């Protein structure tokens, strides 16, 4: 009985100290523990690198990622999935978890992403712009209108006044990219970062500024995170110059 009480006290003390320590997360004290980051699938490569960088700087820290369509991830988090950090590819999905009151603090924008047309490597169909996507001989795939990448693609097409008929509405931008890389589709509209990550398998065709739709990426720490300090450290790193350099390497732009 005594032992259990002592243990409970020790635990309480640890919690208090832990809570205090959060006030000086800004300092470069090495952080330890594990956090789970839920992130839109376009962030796969950049976040894996950032995770590695942070683990190198904080050997006790461990980052686990769960990638998927941002809207699916938001649904999972509002239903209690054990996420510490949520990085979304659009404001709508972030707003879902803000509305569900599961956000710690306010979401912060950490990156943006331009749209690009992805075509088969070497551009055999000679696609020069959005207008070509309506061509009869071009098999076009887009992301479903319900996921961010699909919504942005439709917005860009409508800005350009192009009525395109996709052969398929894929579940996310990565699925679009795969259909092109596998040779089943001739073109799709994805994020610039996606084209960069698949540089040897697909070719990118620019979309001019007047038809561009810029995706903004917000990030937030999820309430009740078991490792608030490390979660905030991850978020801070994203907006730091070092983090921004990594994101730029993977085709993202400043927020």
């Amino acid at each position, binding site marked *: 009985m005594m032992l259990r009480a002592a243990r409970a006290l020790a635990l309480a003390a640890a919690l208090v100290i832990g809570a205090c320590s959060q006030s000086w997360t800004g300092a470069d004290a090495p952080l330890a523990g594990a956090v789970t980051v839920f992130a839109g699938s376009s962030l796969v490569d950049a976040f894996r690198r950032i995770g590695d960088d942070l683990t190198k700087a904080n050997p006790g820290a461990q980052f686990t990622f769960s990638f998927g*369509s941002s*809207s699916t991830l938001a649904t999972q988090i509002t239903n209690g999935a054990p996420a510490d950090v949520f990085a979304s590819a659009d404001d709508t999905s972030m707003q879902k978890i803000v509305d569900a009151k599961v956000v710690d603090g306010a979401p912060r924008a950490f990156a943006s992403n331009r749209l690009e047309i992805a075509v088969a490597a070497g551009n055999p169909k000679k696609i020069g712009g959005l207008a070509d996507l309506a061509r009869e001989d071009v098999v076009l795939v887009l992301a479903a209108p*319900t996921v961010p990448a699909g919504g942005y693609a439709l917005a860009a097409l409508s800005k350009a006044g192009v009525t395109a008929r996709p*052969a398929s*509405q894929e579940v996310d931008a990565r699925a679009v990219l795969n259909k092109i890389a596998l040779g089943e589709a001739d073109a799709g509209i994805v994020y610039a970062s996606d084209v960069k990550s698949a540089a040897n398998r697909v070719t990118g065709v620019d979309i001019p500024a007047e038809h561009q739709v810029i995706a903004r990426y917000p990030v937030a720490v999820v309430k009740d995170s078991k490792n608030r300090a490390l979660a905030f450290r991850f978020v801070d790193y994203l907006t730091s110059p070092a983090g921004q350099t990594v994101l730029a390497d993977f085709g993202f732009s400043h927020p």
Partner: protein
Amino acid sequence: MRSERPPVLFVVLAAVGVAFFVVPLVGLLYRASWETALGDLTSPEALTALRLSFVISLAATALALLLGVPLAWVYARVRFPGRDLVRALTTLPMILPPVVGGVALLFAFGRRGLFGQALDAIGIRLPFTTAGAILAATFVAMPFLVLTVEAGLRSMDRRYEDAARTLGAGRWVVFRRVTLPLIAPSIFAGAVLTWARALGEFGATITFAGNLPGTTQTLPLAVYIALETRPEVAIMLSLVLLATSLGILVAMRDRYLRAF
């Protein structure tokens, strides 16, 4: 069946086992918005998916019957080297992750696939078409038919066939007039199971055939897409799938068990 008094432990564990399956269903029913149910189910997107799923699952069942009954007959009646391996190969889709099945279909019948290039040359395209979705559904569902029919063939009394032959009936007549009627219950059970599996198919379809309303977006795909924006529609469509499958399984239970 002789009913027995069960040990308490078994009753408890069995109850947990039942709860494991029933609680998620109750969760779905609990979340369903019944006031809007009719509107959700008759929305254009739901009707399109329902109609398409019906067509694709029936076509897949027909294709499975056409290829699967002869295949089951060969497995049950012909001894040839490597039969067990071939049977295992054709049963594989039952446990293969359907997404992998879809990718494999792409490598075979896709535009750049092994046979797909030849098909493309003569103007046949399977990915992103309803035909492709039928192919994907058949791929994952046909093993149910083959296994059920093979079991039926193995358990039937072959003396009827012998009798017919001694009376002068040819092979085709024996098959059509004796074998087929005898294994009809197995064929029926296999076809219904195949249909149910085809109806629920998701992974191979979205990977191989893509997702386009009216062309390849079957019920499960529509559920997945709607889950993010209109969960109430997704839940209603799921309940349709559930009720259909439940009805089938309840109706089939005796036939299904007899076949194996």
